[in-house]
C-alpha cells in the first residue's frame, strides 16, 4: 500500500471540506443544477435511476484490509450493506443520500481514500495490472508509476475541466493485462537496449460509442519525461478537443479528425516547450514514492507442486483457474471470484467485505487488489496455505473456479440501476450463467471472455469481450446485440453478428456460438477467440441466424433490428 504523507492527507481532507460547502450551497439554491453537476461528478456522485450513486476511487485497484472494513462499514451505515466493484477497479454504492455524501467522504479520508475525479470531465482513476509487483514477467512495478500519475492528475489546475472524461492505464509487465490499447492514454513499460526504463505511449483508444484502438504516439519515452510529455498531450486535448458535441469530445475523436501524424506533431511542438522543465521526474521522486509503499516480508520457501495439494473434489479446478504464478518461490496469487451464479457480477455484501478483509489479514499481508474483471485478488498467499484458503473462500461463496472462463462475466450495473442504460445487464449475465451451469462443460469450452454492457457507453467492455453483448433500446423495449472477436490484449474490437435479440433468446444464441466453436476448434488448446480469428465471423453468424433461405420470416427479423 502507498501510505499518504502529511500533504497527501491534507489535500484529501481539504477536498472533503470543499465538497461539503459545495453541497451546502447547492441545497441552499446558490449553485444551479448544472454547476453542481460538474462539481459533484468530480467527487464521484451521480444522480441515478432510483437514487444517487457514489463511485469511490480505489487507485490502481490496490486496497488494504483496513480500507475494505471501512467500505463495509460505510455501505452498512449509509447504504444497503453492499457495494459493486466496477471495471474501473472502483467501488460503487447505489443508494447513498446526497446530503450524507460529505460525511461518507470524510469517513473515506480517515482511511486515506476518496472519490476524487471518479467521474466528470476529468482525469480518472489510473488502472493497471492486478498482478503488479508479483508477476514473473514484470518490467517495472506499475503501482509506483500509477501513484506518480495519481498525484500529478489530482486537482490539476489546468486540466480539471477537460472536454470529456480521460482514462489512463499503465502496464508494467511484458504481457498486457491492463488493456492499454483501449484507453485515452495507455502506457506500456519497456526497457531499451541500455536497460533504461521507458514507456510505449498509446493515445486515442477507448470503447463507448466510437470504439477505437489507440495509436502509438511514441515507441519509447524515457521515464524522466513522463509527466511533461503527458502534459503536452493533455494541453493539446484541452485546447482543441471538441466541446460542441458530447459524443465527439473524447481525445480519440481529436486524434481521428486531425490524423495521428498531425496529432503527434502538435504534441511534439507543445512538448518542445515543456521538455526538461521543472516537471521532469527525478530519481529521488520515483524512489520516494516507491519507498512509501509497504512491501510484503516474504519468507524463504520452496516452490510446491500445486498438482499435489490434495485430492479433494473441486480443489483442482480452483487451483487451475483461480491460483496464479508468483515471482517469489513458495507464493501464489489468488483470485476471489465475485461471479457466483445468482449474484450480480462485482457485487459484495458488507459481511463479505469484512470476511474478505479477514482473509487478506490472515493470508495476504493485509492487502488485496480489485481487478477490472470485477474480482478480487489476494496477491501474496503462501502455497502451503492454499487449501486452507480455498476452504474458507468456498464457505464464503468466493471460490467459484471460473476465472478466465465463460461464466466469469463482466457486466455493468445496467438498467437495474443506471440511468443511462438502455437495457438490463444483470439478469442476462445470470441467465447465461444458469444455462452454462455444468462446470465440466465450462472447463471444456476453455478460456472465454464474455462481457455485457447495458448501453453503448460500454462500462461492461463489450467491445473487447470474445463474446460481447450490448443492450439496445428499440421503441422502449430491451434488445441485445451480439458481437464476437473482441479482445483486451492485444486490443481488438468485436464485430456485430447481425440483428439483435430479445432477452430470453440470448442464452440460446450464446449456446449456438459455443456449439460452432466446439465443432470447429482444432484442439482444446485453440480458444474461442483463436477460432474466430482463424475462420472469421461468418460461420458463427450462420450458426446463429441460419443460412439466408432458412432465416425467420421478415416480420420477425424487422422487429429485431435495433
Amino acid at each position, binding site marked *: 500500500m502507498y501510505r499518504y504523507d502529511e500533504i497527501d492527507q491534507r489535500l484529501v481532507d481539504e477536498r472533503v471540506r470543499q465538497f461539503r460547502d459545495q453541497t451546502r450551497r447547492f441545497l441552499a439554491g446558490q*449553485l444551479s443544477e448544472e*454547476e453542481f453537476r460538474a462539481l459533484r461528478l468530480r467527487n464521484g456522485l451521480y444522480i441515478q435511476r432510483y437514487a444517487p450513486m457514489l463511485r469511490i476511487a480505489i487507485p490502481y485497484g490496490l486496497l488494504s484490509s483496513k480500507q475494505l472494513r471501512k467500505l463495509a462499514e460505510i455501505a452498512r451505515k449509509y447504504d444497503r450493506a453492499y457495494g459493486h466493484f466496477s471495471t474501473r477497479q472502483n467501488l460503487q454504492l447505489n443508494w447513498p443520500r446526497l446530503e450524507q455524501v460529505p460525511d461518507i467522504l470524510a469517513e473515506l479520508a480517515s482511511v486515506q481514500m476518496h472519490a476524487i475525479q471518479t467521474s466528470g470531465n476529468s482525469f480518472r482513476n489510473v488502472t493497471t495490472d492486478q498482478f503488479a509487483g508479483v508477476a514473473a514477467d514484470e518490467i517495472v512495478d506499475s503501482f509506483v508509476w500509477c501513484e506518480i500519475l495519481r498525484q500529478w492528475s489530482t*486537482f490539476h489546475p*489546468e486540466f*480539471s*475541466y477537460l*472536454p470529456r472524461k480521460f482514462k489512463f492505464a499503465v502496464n508494467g509487465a511484458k504481457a498486457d493485462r491492463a488493456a492499454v490499447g483501449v484507453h485515452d492514454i495507455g502506457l506500456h513499460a519497456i526497457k531499451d537496449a541500455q536497460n533504461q526504463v521507458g514507456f510505449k505511449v498509446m493515445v486515442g483508444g477507448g470503447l463507448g460509442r466510437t470504439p477505437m484502438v489507440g495509436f502509438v504516439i511514441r515507441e519509447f519515452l524515457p521515464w524522466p519525461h513522463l509527466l511533461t510529455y503527458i502534459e503536452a498531450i493533455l494541453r493539446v486535448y484541452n485546447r482543441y478537443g471538441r466541446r460542441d458535441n458530447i459524443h465527439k469530445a473524447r481525445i480519440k475523436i481529436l486524434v481521428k479528425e486531425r490524423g495521428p501524424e498531425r496529432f503527434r506533431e502538435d504534441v511534439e511542438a507543445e512538448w518542445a516547450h515543456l521538455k526538461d522543465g521543472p*516537471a521532469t521526474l*527525478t530519481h529521488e521522486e520515483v524512489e*520516494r514514492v516507491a519507498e512509501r509503499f509497504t512491501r510484503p516480508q516474504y519468507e524463504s520457501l520452496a516452490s510446491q507442486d500445486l498438482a499435489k495439494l490434495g485430492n479433494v473434489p473441486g480443489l483442482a479446478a480452483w487451483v487451475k483457474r483461480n491460483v496464479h504464478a508468483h515471482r517469489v518461490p513458495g507464493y501464489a496469487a489468488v483470485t476471489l471470484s465475485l461471479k457466483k451464479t445468482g449474484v450480480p457480477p462485482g457485487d459484495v455484501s458488507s459481511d463479505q467485505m469484512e470476511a474478505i478483509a479477514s482473509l487478506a489479514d490472515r493470508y495476504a499481508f493485509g492487502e488485496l487488489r480489485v481487478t477490472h474483471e470485477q474480482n478480487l485478488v489476494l496477491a501474496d498467499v503462501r502455497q502451503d496455505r492454499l487449501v486452507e484458503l480455498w476452504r474458507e473462500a468456498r464457505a464464503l461463496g468466493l471460490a467459484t473456479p471460473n476465472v478466465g472462463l465463460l461464466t466469469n462475466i463482466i457486466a455493468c450495473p445496467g438498467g437495474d440501476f443506471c440511468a443511462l442504460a438502455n437495457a438490463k445487464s444483470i439478469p442476462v449475465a445470470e441467465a447465461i450463467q444458469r444455462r452454462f451451469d455444468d462446470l465440466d462443460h465450462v472447463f471444456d469450452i476453455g478460456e472465454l471472455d464474455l462481457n455485457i454492457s447495458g448501453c453503448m457507453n460500454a462500462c461492461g467492455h463489450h467491445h473487447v469481450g470474445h463474446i460481447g453483448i450490448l443492450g439496445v433500446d428499440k421503441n422502449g423495449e430491451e434488445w441485445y446485440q451480439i458481437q464476437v472477436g473482441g479482445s483486451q490484449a492485444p486490443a481488438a474490437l468485436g464485430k456485430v453478428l447481425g440483428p439483435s435479440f430479445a432477452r430470453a433468446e440470448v442464452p440460446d444464441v450464446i449456446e449456438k456460438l459455443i456449439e460452432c466453436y466446439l465443432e470447429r476448434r482444432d484442439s482444446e488448446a485453440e480458444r474461442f477467440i483463436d477460432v474466430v480469428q482463424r475462420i472469421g465471423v461468418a460461420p458463427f453468424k450462420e450458426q446463429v441466424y441460419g443460412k439466408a433461405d432458412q432465416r425467420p420470416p421478415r416480420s420477425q427479423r424487422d422487429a429485431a433490428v435495433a
Partner: protein
Amino acid sequence: MARLIKGRRAVSETPPSPDEKIVRLEPADDPAAVAGELASASRVEVNFPKFGDGRGFSIGRLLRERYGYKGELRAVGQITRDHLFYLESCGFDSFELREGENAEEAVAAFDDFSESYQASPARPVPLFRRR
C-alpha cells in the same frame, strides 16, 4: 454586491478609462496571436463562457509561462468561487464572478487547498521537488 476580485480582495469595478488597452481572448483564441500586444496591454481578459469550458486555464498558463505576460490577467464569464483556486494556479490574478456570486464570500475559496502537486505559474516548482 461586489463581483470583482483583485489581489484576493473583493473590489468595486471602475469603468475603464479611454487610454486603457484591454486585450480579450475567447476560449478558441490562440494566445500566440496577441503575444506582440502584451507588453502594452493594461489588462488581458480571458472569457470562460461556460462553467465547464476549461480552455481558458491553458490560455492563462501560456500567457504567463510562454509569452511572459506580467500584467493583470482577468478571468471573466461564468466564474464561480469553485474555479478560483485553479484559476489562480494558472496565473490569473483578477476575477469577474458571474451574476449571483458574492465576491466577499468567494475569496475564501483561494484557501480551498493549501498545496498543489503540479508545477504552475503560481508554484513554478512542482511539489515533488519541494518535498
